[in-house]
């Protein structure tokens, strides 16, 4: 069975790009969310194997959403998406339980490799 992924980003453009990259890699995109609040709700509903979570979002930031997801499922595998220049936020995210980071703009090979590593634990 294909590994399921939920993509969270407030930009439709970014979600579409990630969806294309991950579908190409054989992942099954089971949910998408466009803000932090929706991400938490959908996570509880869909229980994806992997979640990609943007940091800068409305209605709960990525970090806040991450904390709630980890509280709901401490085994959750969440990869944070961040832009260059947001390195200061990575500590907070790692402490909250993020498994890895992917940087925007996305490099398809890098994204694929990071997700594979996180999926395989």
């Amino acid at each position, binding site marked *: 069975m294909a590994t399921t992924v939920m993509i969270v980003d*407030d*930009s*439709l*453009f*970014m*979600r*579409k*790009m990630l969806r294309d*990259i991950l579908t190409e890699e054989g992942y099954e995109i089971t949910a*998408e*969310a*466009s*803000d932090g609040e*929706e991400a938490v709700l959908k996570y509880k509903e869909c229980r994806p194997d992997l979640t990609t979570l943007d940091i*800068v*979002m*409305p209605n709960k930031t990525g970090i806040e959403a991450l904390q709630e997801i980890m509280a709901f499922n401490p085994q959750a595998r969440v990869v944070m998406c961040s*832009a260059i220049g947001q390195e200061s936020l990575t500590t907070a995210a790692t402490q909250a339980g993020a498994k890895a980071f992917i940087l*925007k*703009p*996305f490099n*398809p090979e890098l994204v694929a490799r990071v997700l594979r590593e996180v999926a395989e634990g």
Partner: protein
Amino acid sequence: MDMSQYKNLFLSESREYLRAIAEQVVALEQSPAEKGAIDSLFRAAHSLKGMAASMEYGEVVLVAHGMEDLMARVREGALEFGAGVADLLLEGVDLIDALLADVEADRVESRPTEDYAQRLAGYTPAPRGKEAPEPPRDSPKPTPAPPEPEKAKEPSGETGGTVRVKTELLDHLINLTGELVTNKHRLLNIGRELGSPALNDAVSETAKLLRALHDEVMKVRLMPFEAICDRFQRSVRTLAKKSGKELQFELTGREIGLDRGILEQLVDPLNHILRNAVDHGMEESAERVAAGKPARGVVELSVIRDRDRIQIRVRDDGRGMDPQKMIDAAVKKGVITPEEGELLSPRQALMLSCMPGFSTAKEVTDISGRGVGMDAVNAAVQKLGGTLGIESDPGAGSTFTLRLPMTIAIIHALIVQCGGVKNAVPVTAVHRTVELSRRQIETVGKRQTFLLDGETIPLLSLNRVLGLPLGRFPDGILPLFVTEAKGRRVGIVVDRLLGQHELFVKPFGRPLSKMAGLAGGATLGDGEVVTILDLADLL
């Protein structure tokens, strides 16, 4: 990865972010400490930067990055959100907008992005007091606190079960639905000829379904008023600044949906009315204070839905218009005769502003230009099947009300016969129909008129306007309909009134589209083609 496939999505989403930024900037100017708006501005610039970086559009990245950093400074409290910041952000919006247009057209232009980014990075606000002058303290009434600005919506993607559809596809659907309506009338005719109750039943059932289909398809074409309102916020802001007037712009009803086609046609007329309100309607602060009004004027743009019609209102609390002064000015300019002036009601006098070549501004400013305008506004509104109303209270302000249909493609029209030609007039333009006896016609000077509800109404022959042979009326009864032209009621005489009909309007192609007075064509149930007249243009 081939990024060209993402170009359209990039462009459309980027423009949504730009619109959101422009709205938030204006909102923040009215309540600069609104944290939600500050965050939202920051996020929009941040998202723009990320998207542009993915597409490798370096110049967009540079500008968006600068805006993001500026907002980060505001967010951290290092910088106050003032007019200087607002100006810079709006400049950035315009710059990115231009860059996006370049991208869309595959064009390489040189834009001052470097210079802009440097100015952003080095920005420090002007010393306090210079940037925003305080209103005079001795004003008799305190300026009311501005209400919380409406929060502009975040641009949203296709979550929540919605999809993006090409507009051509929607137009196709409308077209097909329209053709079905025409065909229904054909079936009705056949049913009548055959006298088959079963067929009639089936057709009337189909008619019900078609009505439902039409309503649903029309809903798809609806777009929220929001889609155009950021332009108004910006233009009012710019105008107020340019004319040195202090005012507050209030906008309500941005969520109300209108047909896309109507929405596009509304931008210019509304901009014009708003310009007039700021430029001519609104007094200088000193004049307002002297008149016992708050120093800060208010211009309101509100949209409300009234069953299947939309009402758009622009109201200002400025100096208002004096009907008698309007009449005097019109007489002086030779637009009307003194005798005509005496017959006008206050409402009609205000509508004089819609006559070509009429302007009440004491002086011409470079903002509103030279009196072009209200006649064009009125014509545009009528073309959309709507009406324009003007109310004014001298000293207290003016209100311009546009009443518009929500959708346009299918209209109810009065079908009239002139010579061998059938014409259609949208019922929204028809005040009433009259069958006039020849004895009731009075001749005033060269004009023929008749009396309706105590008002003298001039008569015009539609045959003459269209260059057709004049009707004879052997029984001495002239059929006519009453409409409004240039702010006044006129009676339009035709050969016969054939009744109301539901029509699916199709625009004419060239060269017919170039002809004045024609709004389009439609097919009747029996296959006959009728011309839909644009009376505002024709008369």
